[in-house]
């Protein structure tokens, strides 16, 4: 009987052995890249909404304060989505005939939550009522907006450059490692405008200062520039030192920030 395998088969065998070592890693890497990619996390992907609401138009061009709509952001865990009534406080006067605002008017007239108008827009199983949720942390994460605002953290820190978004997207993927970036090193993120003009500002107002300066066309600090453009910012050693001082001032117990039960319970 002749040889079953030609000498070239050795190469196949070698390649197989090699790939047995490599392939799992490739698969693992591919898997984790895919799960972390925007196609899965929807980071930076604008999502369809029943009404194409533009934060850029309302918050930046018109200069409406975030808290006009997200009323509870300073006071409770949730920032909250505005009721139809809030939209109608202006839109009963302006753009009263805009076809884009039809779902808002219908909601107000019929006293039912906002409905999607075009059934084709809605893929099956997602429901016809309400806005598409853009930012979501898992159910076992108990995030509290109010305390973060009370420590002077600007909205854009987590939500990306919201004032530039025509259709809203998720600024961050909200992976736990990303949360821990700040919870481990809060001094890198706590920030106050060095301008003495703002020294009496409460931390809570400090959180919204960049938007105010943007509206008033005042000069922005590099940190504020980065925040408002959605870029990552590397604080200088002096800024980190100032962050340390802020930790003292606010009484933040840094060690405690990474306790599991701070966020999960």
């Amino acid at each position, binding site marked *: 009987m002749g040889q079953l395998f030609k000498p070239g088969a050795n190469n196949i065998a070698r390649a197989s052995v090699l790939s047995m070592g490599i392939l799992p890693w490739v698969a693992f890497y591919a*898997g984790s890249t895919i*799960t972390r990619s925007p*196609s*899965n*996390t*929807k980071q930076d992907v604008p*999502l369809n909404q029943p009404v194409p609401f533009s934060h850029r138009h309302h918050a930046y061009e018109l200069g409406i304060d975030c808290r006009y709509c997200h*009323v*509870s952001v300073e*006071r*409770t*865990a*949730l920032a*909250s*989505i*505005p*009721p*139809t*009534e*809030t939209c109608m406080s202006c839109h009963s006067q302006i753009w009263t005939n805009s076809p884009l605002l039809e779902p808002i008017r219908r*909601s*107000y007239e019929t*006293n*039912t*939550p*906002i409905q999607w108008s075009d059934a084709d827009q809605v*893929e099956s199983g*997602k*429901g016809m*009522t*309400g*806005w*598409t*949720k853009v930012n*979501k942390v*898992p*159910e*076992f994460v*108990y995030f*509290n907006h*109010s*305390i973060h605002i*009370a420590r002077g953290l600007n909205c854009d820190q987590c939500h990306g450059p919201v004032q530039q978004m025509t259709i809203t997207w998720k600024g961050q993927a909200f992976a736990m490692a990303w949360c821990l970036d700040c919870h481990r090193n809060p001094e890198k993120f706590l920030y106050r405008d060095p301008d003495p003009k703002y020294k009496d500002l409460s931390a809570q107002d400090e959180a919204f200062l960049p938007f105010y300066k943007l509206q008033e066309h005042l000069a922005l600090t590099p940190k504020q520039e980065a925040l408002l453009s959605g870029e990552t910012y590397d604080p200088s050693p002096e800024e980190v030192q100032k962050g340390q001082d802020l930790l003292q001032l*606010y*009484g933040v*117990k840094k*060690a*405690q920030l990474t*306790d*599991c*039960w*701070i966020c*999960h*319970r």
Partner: protein
Amino acid sequence: MDKNEKQINTETMREKFANVSGERYWRGLEELVDTAEFQSWMEDEFPQRASIPDVDRRTFLKLAGASLALAGLAGCRSLPEERIVPYVKAPEDSLPGQELTYASTMPFDGYGFGVLVSSNEHRPTKIEGNDRHPASLGSTDIFSQAEILNMYDPDRSGNPLQMLPGQVPLMGTWEEALAEITNTLGTLSNGAGIRLLTETVTSPTLYAQIQAFLAKYKQAKWYQYQAISRDNQKKGSVAAFGRIVDTRYDLSNAVVILALDSDILGCTPETVRYIRDFMARRGPDLPFPQINRLYSVESTFSKTGAFADHRFALKHSDIPGFTQYLASALGVAAAGPGRLPEGVKADWVAALVRDLVSHKGSALITVGETQPPEVHALAHAMNEALGAVGKTVNYLEPIEPHPVIHNDELTQLTAEMAGHQVDALFILGGNPAYSAPPDVPFATELQRLTAAKKLTVRHGIYNDETSALCQWHLPDSHFLEAWGDLRSYDGTTSIVQPLILPLFDTRSAIEVISQLVGKPQNGLDMVRKQWSSLKDQPWRDCLEKGFIDGTASKPAAVTAKVSSLPSTPASGADAIEAVFAPDSTVWDGRYSNNGWLQELPKALTRMSWDNPVIIGPKLAVQLDVIYEDNVELTANGATVIAPVYVLPGMPDNTVTLTLGYGRTTAGKVGDGTGFNFNPLRKSSSPWVTTVEIKKAGSKTDLALSQTHHSMDGRDIVREGTHSEYLSHQSLEPREAMGEDESAILYNLTKEWQADNPDIQQWGMTIDLNTCTGCSACEIACQAENNIPTVGKEQVQRGRIMHWIRVDRYFRVEDAGEERDFKEPIAQYESINPSNDTGAMDPNNVKVVSMPVPCMHCEEAPCEPVCPVAATIHSHEGLNQMVYNRCVGTRYCSNNCPYKVRRFNFFNFQFRQKQFQSERDITLLNLMNNPDVSVRSRGVMEKCSYCVQRINEARITAKKENRKIKDMEVIPACAQACPSKAIVFGDISDPTTAVSKLKAQKRNYGLLEDLNTRPRTSYLAKVRNPNPEISNAAANARGAKRG
């Protein structure tokens, strides 16, 4: 493990009892007898693991591979897109994510109990006590905690139903039903033949509506009946005062209290207040005339008896004689000499009498509902002789607007039904078809009435046994869904304020009656009209407070006169008496379908899902039965077969039967649980009957939780007497508790203080001295922390989920040794064979209740064994459990010496056997606390010290730039506790309440010698026995021994 193997037989029990006499604690007879089977059950961390199918290696690998592949695949899906639905018009007073609290009033037994109800996004989620309400003072009982589950109960009836005998009821509308009902009413001239049957009515608005109804239908009659009534109290009041007045005790003034078959610390609408007042005088640092002393003479084993400093177990029929003897000793002239029942020592009574007399003005005698009216009348006379009236006992003008004797009412109504005088019957609330004693054939007559095409209408929360026999069932609203008012135990009128629109198409009783009267109004209008004197602002103030000031009942000026006493016949010494009692968790059956209450282990038996026949060890040996053996009970022509539970401390020849079980149409949870003992009752004597009892030969599985999570007889419970405690006052705390720090191997320096100087360190104390074992903490924790129920079968497997359990330890009286307070009592395990009384003597049994939550050990044994670091320490000293890390190895639970960790063997939250439809699951989900994760299958869970409340308080404090104040964080268990036995706070700050308690010499840690350094510590129990009696007893024992 095979069920039968586990059993212990009577022979071993008898042998063991003979040997047990030295002082030691045991949790149940199985432990006391300590069979090999019990040992193996206890040593097995997760008993009955054998239920996991036995598979060979190949199959196991196949399954494991498949599940790994599937588990991996489950992760490969993109995040689902979700909708977020805002309001159209936001309500003015609330923000999303903000919890709101409203005052309301819970009806219980016809009386109101002031509660504060939390609402999350406008769904009620938690009930707490109203701290301003006189009945609550901020605490709750198990029923008010569990009411929230009743509201979301998927089995509640949601539509008017036209009942068709033997068929599925026809769903109707309110319009149809009311049209038909009013048509029929119109045909009855002047309302002849109309009968209205309600439960106890205290609500002024409901009473006004009933009056309007009776005014419109002139010949209509109104009856009141409820299974757990106060008939004997009322009759006793008539016998003593010539009219009905309400008796209320003021335990804050009482020093020497004698409870005659009276469960004042047990469960009635006034209990929460009674416990609070009683415990206010229980601080062991108070000298005697300030600290109180409780005597109990009772015919069952109640929570009051278990708490008493002196308890004497007597047959029910012996208590009147005892009372008479006592009365003559106290100088109540008309009482006659009386007869001291056999077994009661005259010097015991003499010491009691001396104690009572020497505290004139602060002595009190209370009588329970089960005792005949004569005993109540005698007690009124004795209280008067002791100068108690106006001090420890108050007589109030009746709180019910129309007080009646319930059994007479039902008897009369049934007679009228039988006499063809009834053409239309309205039953509002209650469940008389289930609860009526068999000599009042209410159910039969109701069925006959319906069959004769007479109008029979039932209005109730559930479509139950009574509804099934009616023509129409109309669904009632829950108290959180409808307006109303109720009077509480002292008469204070409290407003029932709804928090949510009715979940189903239901209407409240006042709304239904207003329809029948022909002037339909909504509930709010009726209540406002009733209290029209309260204009806008005063009304709003009342709503905020929850009650109307100045509405408490006026004191009644009455003088007790005891003219003649009908001699109460004592049953023969060998006759066995059955004493009926409301069940401590499902009451008269109204909570049968409440899974939380069904699963809550009952105070003294630690039994859930059942109501076995409770008998004493002596009777058990006599009948040759043991736990789970069925017995056949025959009384008044009826026979019931039920299993026994052997409870030490039961009086001889007495069985206790609790009501409320054995329901046939309670709902998916309550159906088929327990046994219905109502057929053994008699309307003339509803609380006691003589029974014939014999072994039935069969067995019934019971779900006993007391042997779960056992700590194997180690040093657990510590107690001493008041005089011992005071005499050691000068000693250092730890030394006083028998603990010598040098004897411990480990270094006890408190590292956490050095590590985290500014961070609060949480700790808890639990005062064994004031814990009555009421279990309110267990239910409060369940409601707060979304703890699932697991069902009877899983409880039997030891998988009960409560994060805080209440252990109950029995102790037989000290064998005569000189006992030093320095020694932990549980170390007394000496066996003294010459003393043959042991646990067989009911009067020898003492009880300690001990709530056990997670200890949050500083050196937690659970932490190092977790392979995935799912349980680790926080900087605040909390032992954190991280569900999303847990892979379910259960090593932690294995290593926990306190056995406080609970494992989700199944997806208990969403895969309840009974509730699997999407509607049911959604309904039950609405009830969940949004601040606590809902755990899924395969993860461990345990007490978190209510970390959600800590976090909430921390965030609030940080926003206000301050530290968390003392008592700002109150865990659910501490908030509910009527005795305020649980105190929580920062132990690094010596000024907090909890630090001060931990500095007391009574403070000790559970199994502290293991160097776990528990953050939860206990305060030893300090009993306050009468020295005269305890010395005499010690001498007697000494003489016997010598």
